[in-house]
């Protein structure tokens, strides 16, 4: 069973990260709901985190993993503030469709 002992090239992890990032970009471009657009941004952050972890594995760098930890913290803060902004926008406009939220003025 040599299949069970087979290792995974790190390139595949990076390729998965690139694919997830691209899917996040596509979601950011085609989704028309404010919350889903925000979710696509989270997806891109996650994809970048995966390549950080892969490179930390490659160079045995602890700081790469710690950077991912900091990215997670900043993303959590960003999600809290961003969703609060979405609630405020919904209060002002009563819609979540990004095409109808095209003025900064109320």
């Amino acid at each position, binding site marked *: 069973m040599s299949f*069970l002992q087979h*290792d*995974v*090239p*790190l*390139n*595949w*992890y*990076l*390729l*998965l990260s*690139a*694919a*997830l990032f*691209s*899917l*996040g970009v*596509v*979601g950011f*471009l*085609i*989704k*028309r*709901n404010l*919350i*889903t657009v925000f*979710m*696509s941004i*989270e*997806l891109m952050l*996650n994809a970048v985190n*995966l390549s950080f*972890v892969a490179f*930390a594995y*490659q160079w045995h*760098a*602890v*700081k790469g*993993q*710690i950077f*991912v*930890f*900091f990215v997670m*913290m*900043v993303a*959590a*803060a*960003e*999600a*809290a*503030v961003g*969703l*609060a*902004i*979405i*609630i405020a926008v919904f*209060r002002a406009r009563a819609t*979540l*469709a990004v*095409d109808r939220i095209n003025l900064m003025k109320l």
Partner: protein
Amino acid sequence: MHLILFFLFAGLCLAGAINLLLQTHPINSALSLIVVMTSLAVLYLLLGAEFLAIAQIIVYAGAVMVLFTFVVMLLNAGREERTLGSRAGARVGFPAVAVLLAVLATVLLHAQGLTAAHLGAGLTDAKSGTNLDILSQVLFHELLLPFEVTSVLILIAILGAVALARADGSKTGGAEGTAEK
């Protein structure tokens, strides 16, 4: 074993991400994003990042996605409608992103000098303790100041979330920030 786990969870990851794009209701997108984040946690585990795998599940799949589903349900977000903007985005965006992905894939697949990841490998040589030991040594000694600054950032984010989400003076708009920590 590593190969099987990688393909299983990488496939789950990609399927969740594609499902996020295909679903029109935000709650379905949020649930598929949870699938993506949880499978990413397993991939972190395969790459020897146990702490990050747990943090990914607690912070992302737990706190952040609970916040997302909470807001989706609070605002009673319905199906999104297809409009001119989304068609233009699809028409311009898809080729551009396909080109981006093709370039990235070519570069990554031809990258030399990358090792093959195998299960059970630690961050450094095993004599100086487990991965978690090494990680906490660096995080709480060398990088203590950035860590403390992060806690200030979280505090400011909580205050900002409460201040932003509060309805004007009359009643509070819910404790969005408190779900984080």
